[in-house]
């Protein structure tokens, strides 16, 4: 995480987004991760997605725990506040920040060790709370920063670099999310930015916790033969369950297929998000309903049992209600409410005191 400011050479060619920012404006300090680390590609996808969504940089809060993956919040959007907290506890820190200021865009980046080992409890409860947060797990099956021990996402039979096989059943974040009632669950691959970017965009717009499990190989400790989280293995077993495109309200044109209730291959289905944007799902061959929680669960289980890596924006609940709706807090961010509106004043206290006489 050493801070090496990038030379901000002026590129006349660099394209600007609606608010006049170039992708450069969404970048961070130079990465100190290993050359080829999957995490750096995810960082790239985040930069692209944020730029395409034209997010005002200072309205974004980057949250993370501890790990190589968690370090990456320093490698994008230097103009945004970032909080690299403690190991496995990003969900609670993000919950508190979100409770205080619901208007920021929260981007949480974590690792499989950070989220599924030490942080499992917090992840589960954050999903139940459904706070409005993009929750990215850069999943490499190992603890990278501590030199490659198996994490809770290591598959049965997966071999460590020293050749020792893992025998404990893995935790699949997507299945976990589905069984705990999460409202958005997706899986991507650091090697497929084309698929990942729209998922990230939809996740940012989703009014609730958007869990995105990204297979992000650790080239140093878990990219060997025998690994089930290597580039080669993932590419080979990679399967797109359903394709998803993110459409801004303005770009949205109801598709012809829309009427077809039947979702044959190539069939399209648009799911409207609370802010008017849409996610357009396109069938890839499997008859797939991304809003059917149990159907998705069975599908993912089947594919995984078949030794595949099912990916895509796998599940979305269009009815998602976030933390604040459940808490019944005011629309306005709590941090924006002036003190005078928070303090009931002397008179009120006086009447309260009456009940203690």
């Amino acid at each position: 995480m050493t801070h090496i400011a990038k030379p901000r050479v002026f590129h006349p060619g660099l394209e600007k987004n609606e608010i006049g920012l170039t992708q450069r404006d969404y970048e961070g300090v130079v990465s100190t991760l290993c050359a080829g680390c999957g995490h750096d590609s995810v960082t790239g996808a985040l930069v692209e997605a944020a730029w395409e969504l034209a997010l005002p940089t200072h309205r974004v809060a980057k949250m993370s725990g501890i790990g190589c993956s968690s370090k990456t919040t320093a490698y994008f959007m230097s103009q945004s506040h970032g909080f690299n907290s403690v190991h496995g506890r990003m969900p609670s820190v993000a919950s508190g920040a979100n409770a205080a200021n619901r208007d920021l865009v929260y981007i949480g980046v974590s690792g499989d060790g950070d989220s599924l080992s030490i942080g499992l409890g917090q992840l589960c409860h954050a999903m139940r709370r459904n706070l409005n947060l993009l929750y990215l797990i850069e999943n490499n099956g190992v603890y990278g920063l501590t030199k490659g021990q198996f994490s809770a996402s290591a598959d049965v039979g997966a071999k460590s670099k020293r050749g020792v096989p893992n025998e404990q059943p893995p935790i699949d974040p997507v299945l976990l999310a589905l069984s705990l009632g999460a409202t958005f669950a997706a899986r991507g691959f650091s090697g497929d930015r084309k698929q990942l970017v729209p998922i990230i965009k939809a996740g940012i717009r989703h009014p609730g916790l958007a869990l995105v499990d990204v297979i992000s190989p650790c080239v140093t400790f878990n990219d060997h033969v025998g690994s089930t989280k290597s580039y080669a293995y993932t590419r080979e077993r990679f399967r797109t369950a359903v394709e998803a495109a993110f459409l801004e309200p303005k770009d949205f044109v109801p598709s012809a297929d829309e009427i077809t209730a039947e979702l044959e291959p190539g069939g399209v289905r648009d799911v409207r998000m609370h802010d008017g944007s849409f996610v357009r799902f396109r069938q890839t061959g499997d008859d797939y309903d991304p809003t059917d929680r149990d159907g998705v669960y069975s599908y993912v289980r089947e594919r995984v049992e078949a030794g595949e890596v099912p990916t895509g924006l796998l599940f979305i609940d269009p009815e998602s209600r976030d933390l604040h709706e459940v808490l019944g807090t005011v629309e306005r961010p709590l941090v924006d409410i002036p003190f005078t509106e928070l303090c009931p004043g002397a008179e009120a206290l006086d009447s309260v005191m009456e009940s203690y006489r």
Partner: protein
Amino acid sequence: MATRANDFALKIGTVNGTGSASANGLLMQSIFRMGVPVSGKNVFPSNIQGLPTWYEIRVNAAGHVARTRRFDLVVAMNPETYARDIGELATGGWLLYDSSWPLARELKRSDVNFVGVPFAEMCVKRFKGGRKRILMKNIVCTGVVAALLGIDFEIIRTLLEETFGEKKRHLLEANFTAIDLGFDYAAQRFDCPLPIRIEAMEANRDSVLIDGNTAAALGCIYAGATVAAWYPITPSTSLIEAFTAYCHRLRVDEASGKLKVAIIQAEDELASAGMVVGAGWAGARAFTSTSGAGISLMTEFIGLAYYAEVPCVFFDIERVGPSTGMPTRTQQGDILMCAYASHGDTKHICLYPKDPAECFDFAVRAFDLAERFQTPVFVLSDLDIGMNDWVIPRLRWEDGYRPDRGKVLDAAALEGMDAFYRFMDVDGDGIPYRTLPGVHPKGAYFTRGSGHDKYGKYTEDEEEYQEVLDRIAVKIDGAADAVPAPEIRLHPDAGYGLVTIGGCDGGVREAIERFAEEGVHFDYMRIRGFPFSEEVAKFIEAREVNIVVEQNRDAQLLSLLALEAGVDKGRLVSVRRYGGLPLSASGVMDSVRELLGLPAGAAPAGIAEDSKGPAEETPSGAPDSVEVGA
């Protein structure tokens, strides 16, 4: 026995989950309404139903609130504890028991008066249904006690009306019946009131009867706290419950009917700590309320907040440790932990309220200090302060108050700067400037618990790292003059200093008064905040002998003073009471006598006390008679 108005103690022994709590409250409040200083201590088990529980009421015109260890009137409603309850009766005292069944021979004591009332029989005759009979028995009993103590009957009826009102008419009726039943029974059979009795006063005209957790909750609301994260744990839970209840009354947005606060019941204490850290970082005044075990679990996050300089407030409503300990007993066992919580070099601002009034006041100050010094602040209350009802001056609010947000740069300020550096000591006070997310691109910085330099950049360089860590030390030391100053009371002829903290106040000050009656005088200092101010050291250095009274085994306050006040440890001697019950004046006096080799003086009339107490600190030879009230 000579009448002793407004100066006695009574104890009610019942079974928990039988509705005795409300009956006890009724008694307390009626005495309070009669304008007489009163204090109540609820001694309950860590269980929901069926175990022995006690309620102690002390009436004292002079306003002494400390717990007493002997009682003039004992209401024994729980046969399981008869023996123990009768044993705590002062010579010449009264025992009120349920005479539906004969009292076992061996329980009789010749030096006390037995007053039997067939409560069970009376209830069976008068009420239908087991549950109802059990509940009403307590009210009948209250009626009897009211008669015995000469409590204004109208006040009781009014209180009942206020509680049940029109909506619960039927309940009201039942209660009236029960109260009358008991009152009349006693009025007819005994010559009421007893020598120990309540006589109306005007002492409470400007007071309220309230518990510390409720007062603290109100403080949080008035301080403008908008995020509360918590996990249930006795005895801290009622703080959040009160906060929640009052937010639904005082923090509702008229227009939308929605809440101007976020209260999150977390999955555990690690999460609630993380939430207040996150909320504090985002700019909200955030707090959590817990007890010892919770602080242990929050230890890692506390270190993060300290090093990343995030304002947040932790209420530690102490209970008996270590580990799960005795969840429904009181202690001051977290003093050292809170001062230094977490690995590496850390030191935290702590406030030590003595009663609900200070709970309210310190809650507000805690948020100001947390934001001003950008660090976690602890408010150490305890079960006795937090859950028992105290008579305190009515809480008032100064509408002129504005929160001290500390050095927070707003958009305008940032706009005008070329560059902002989060951890730089611009003003030489060790306190850097802070920005909040979402305010301005120039304010963006990266918060981390890993090594960073004054610019906020990651570092592994020894000097860059030290520069920041040393500044933080300067910053925290600077809080010494900002925390509440010690309460100091001097006596011209004082030979020694008595130093204490928090809820020990009542017992220690009463002890001082009673020693004064014996011609022995003490100067008094009550620590109210940490880091310690100059005054603390001055007081201690000025006296050869400073007796430090506290409620823990290891003399934690004394240790903290020895370490941080820069005083000679030799001047500090320790008195500890940590069995889990609130401190009593006689307990303090026993120990102080032993320490200073003072003769066991006769207790002033009217205070029924004995010298029984934790073995290791009691002059074993002290004859039992000595302190028994005349």
